[in-house]
C-alpha cells in the first residue's frame, strides 16, 4: 500500500507543479509529504485545523503540505491569498489529481465565480484541453464558460415550484449547433 501511495503522490506532485505553471505563469506550486505534529502550531501552512493523531497528542502523522510561490511576491501562507488566487490554486490541485487518476466525471459548481476575465480564460483552456478524457459538468453564470460547451442544458423553476430541464444544444463534429428536444 505504501508504495502505491508514494508513486501516486509523486505523480500528483509533478502534475500540481505543471498545473500551477499553466494557471499562474511564473509561479511555482509545491506539494510535500511532511510530518505534521499535531502540537506543532508553527506549521508553515495557514491555521489548518490541527489533526490529533488517534494515538494521542504526539504521534506525528504524515500530511501533505501545499505551498504556492507567486511571481514577484514573497511566499505567503494560503490564507493571505486573494479569493481568485485561492480558487485557481484549488483548481490546479484538482487537475493534478485528475491527471494522476481521472474520475469518470467531474461536477464543478460555479468554481470560476471569483476569477477575473484573464483567469477564467486559463481555467477554460484546461477544460477544453482535457475534455476528451472525462466528462465535465460545469454549472455557471459566466457567459464565456457557456461558449465552450459541447452540450448546454438550461434549468428553470416553474410557477409550480418544480425544476424543469430544457433543450440541449449539441455541438456536432463540424461545430454547427442543433436544437435537441429533451
Amino acid at each position, binding site marked *: 500500500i505504501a508504495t502505491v*501511495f508514494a508513486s*501516486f*503522490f509523486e505523480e*500528483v506532485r509533478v502534475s500540481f507543479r505543471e498545473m500551477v505553471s499553466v494557471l499562474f505563469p511564473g509561479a511555482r506550486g509545491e506539494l510535500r*509529504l*511532511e510530518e*505534521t505534529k499535531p502540537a506543532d502550531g508553527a*506549521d508553515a*501552512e495557514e491555521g*489548518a*485545523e490541527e*489533526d490529533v493523531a488517534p494515538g494521542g497528542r504526539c504521534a506525528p*502523522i504524515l*500530511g*501533505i503540505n501545499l505551498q504556492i510561490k507567486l511571481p514577484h511576491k514573497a511566499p505567503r501562507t*494560503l490564507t493571505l491569498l486573494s479569493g481568485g488566487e*485561492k480558487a485557481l490554486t*484549488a*483548481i490546479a*490541485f*484538482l487537475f493534478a*489529481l485528475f491527471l*494522476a*487518476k481521472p*474520475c*469518470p*466525471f*467531474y*461536477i*464543478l*459548481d*460555479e*468554481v470560476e465565480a471569483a476569477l477575473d476575465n484573464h483567469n477564467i480564460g486559463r481555467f477554460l483552456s484546461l477544460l*477544453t484541453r482535457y*475534455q*476528451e478524457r*472525462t*466528462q465535465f*459538468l*460545469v*454549472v*455557471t*453564470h459566466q457567459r464565456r464558460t*457557456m461558449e*465552450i*460547451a*459541447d*452540450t*448546454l*442544458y*438550461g*434549468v428553470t*423553476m416553474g410557477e409550480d*415550484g*418544480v*425544476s*424543469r*430541464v430544457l433543450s*440541449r444544444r449539441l455541438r456536432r463534429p463540424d461545430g454547427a449547433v442543433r436544437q435537441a428536444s*429533451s
Partner: protein
Amino acid sequence: AFLKAIELRGFKTFARPTEILLVPGVTVIIGPNGSGKSNLADAVLWALGEQSPSALRGKGMQDVLFAGSKGHQPSAAAEVNLLFDNSQGEFPGGYQEVQITRRVLREGASEYFINGSACRLLDLQELCAAVGLGREMHSVISQGKVDELLSSSPAARRALVEEAA
C-alpha cells in the same frame, strides 16, 4: 468509464421524473438563481452514497425529498439513477453499462442498487472506489466549496490523495 445519464425523481425540486443525457466533453448547466442547478449536483453526491445532511445543505436526510409546493404534493419517495458507460471495463464485473441507484421513502432508510439489484452501501462504495469515486467525492465540487480543497489540513489532504490512488 463515462457518466452517460442522470435520472431523478422526487429529489429536492425535481418532483417530476427528469433525465439528463450526457456525452463526453464539456456539459454546461445554466439557469436563474434557485432554479435547481446545485440540487442536481446534490443528487449525484447523494446517489454516490453521501451520508451527511449538511453536505446536501439540509438539516436532516429527509430534506432531500421534494417538500411540496403550490399545486404539488410532497413526494413520498426520492430516487436517483446514475448510468455509466463501462465499455472499457474500469468498473469490475464485466458489464457494458453500470447503473447505480439510491432510493428513499419518507421516514424510511435509504436503499441502494447496482444494475437493479439491491446491495449495501458498502458494496456501492467499493464499486465506485474502483474508478476513483471514493468517499471524499473530490470529483464533485459543490457551490462555494472550491477553496475547501485547499483549506483542509495536511492530513486530510493526504487522505484525499490516498483515496484517489
